[in-house]
């Protein structure tokens, strides 16, 4: 059974290509939300198994979206991977991924194998 992933990011081209990459694995059904102000409504209607969330967005940034998710007990359980171009890319060890809770911050440009690994870990745990 494929898992549902929601991409929340204002970068249209980036979300389009990330969706193609994720869906190509055959493991995921991906939906895109480019308008962060509509993120919560989309989460409610789509009820994803995991969320990939950009940090710097107009309207509502990733932190605001995250805070809204956390304030709702039902949605707070959904694992979130935050992506940002604001941090430098550093190697995330397997151990770090294993030790992380239901949230992780990954640098942009994103390392696809690492992202897939992180998603699997979070989804198994969820």
């Amino acid at each position, binding site marked *: 059974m494929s898992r549902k992933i929601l991409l929340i990011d*204002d*970068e*249209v*081209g*980036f979300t*389009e*290509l*990330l969706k*193609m*990459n994720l869906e*190509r694995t055959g493991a995921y059904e991906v939906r895109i939300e480019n308008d962060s102000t509509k993120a919560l409504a989309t989460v409610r209607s789509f009820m994803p198994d995991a969320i990939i969330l950009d940090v*710097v*967005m*107009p*309207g*509502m*940034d990733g932190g605001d979206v995250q805070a809204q998710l956390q304030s709702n007990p039902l949605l707070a359980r959904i694992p979130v991977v935050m*992506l940002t*171009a*604001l941090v430098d890319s550093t190697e995330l060890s397997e151990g770090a991924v294993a030790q992380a809770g239901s949230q992780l911050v990954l640098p*942009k*440009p*994103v390392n*696809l194998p690492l992202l897939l690994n992180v998603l699997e870990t979070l989804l198994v745990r969820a």
Partner: protein
Amino acid sequence: MEKHSIVESVLDNLPVAVFAKDATNDFRFVLWNKKQEEVTTIRAEKALGKNDYHLFSQESADYFRSVDKAVIKRGSLMNVPEEIIETKHGREVHLRTIKIPVHDAETGRTLVVGISEDITEHVKSREQLERLNRHLVAANQELQQTQLQLIQAEKLESIGRLAAGVAHEVKNPLALLLLGVDYLAQGIHPDDPNIGRILHQMREAVERADRIVRGLVDFSSQRALTREPTQLARLIDEVLLLVKHELTRSSTKVSVRIEKDLPLVYLDMSKFEQVLINLIINAVHAMEKSESKVLKIRAHSESLEDVVKNQGARKREVFRSGDRVVILEIFDTGHGIAPQDSGRLFDPFFTTKATGVGTGLGLSVARRIVELHGGELSLKNRENESGAVARLILPTKLETGRIRTRPPDPQSEESTPAARKERKEIDTTAEDLTP
């Protein structure tokens, strides 16, 4: 009193030197008045009956003789605006002289009558003035150079502030590229409908990153003020690209509306980007606590009669009645200008921002750049709404002299009427700026 002595008395009391030479007798002096004695320091009794070669240096005498001969040949008055004689004390006397040929029918002699005015003091004052002027020009050039250095220093400051945002904007297309590579690296199937889309997105990402980096490199380049015919709309596009991160991060909506067929303005792109970046960043900072953050950029052209009534005297010195000007306005919805600050906004080092956020040079440098372009920059609160508006008035003509300029290139895309017509009114929001 005899007729002869009346004439002599008049001649001796004239404030100008008068002399006469007999051209028919080796140009020997036959008249030498008191003022001529004073000017040459040669007494009449020593001069009369002698010629220039007896009284002055060979070089001077040659010159005087050549003029005298020319006067006789022409048969009419000759004006010598400036000539120099050296007195026996070694003093140089500057004279303005009129020489007139006179034919004395009674004696059959042809005379050269000279009337000289001592202009030594004038010449000295003039030379002193010229010297002062040269100093002034040099000082002014030095000042301009210093100002350009200050402009560059302030620009480097703002590049520092923009760098993080620009890096973020470049990372986004890079992230997209990497995803494209990851997808393609897993094998390319000719039937895969995604391939074309991915390649298209990758190409756009490369172009976007290139445009951002090129914009920053152009902006940071240091060169003398070079004004070129510029489409204001293009300039605004480039600036919005450089500040996109600041606008996105602050959730500022942007609305740009530019009059169709707006005349070209003669701008130094790089320096003017600096002005607009300063004004936009100021506006963004001013809106930090505002609920609605809207940056409105408007540009239109006006004939100067339309604006002159409400403007100060200074503007009438800069622009002439009937001049076509471009008005660029940047409106924000921020806290506006506090009454106590309004008089100091353009003072160097005046800032209302926290230490480390601004140097206080932004607006003073921006105004200086606009003035170097023959334009005007003012800043005031919006009428009937909260927020401030920065208003730029720019000439559509290139005045000469002050600044190095480059004439419009008829081949260039921007200067063709067709290219200008292409730019229609545009209305966009921050999100629309993503290529």
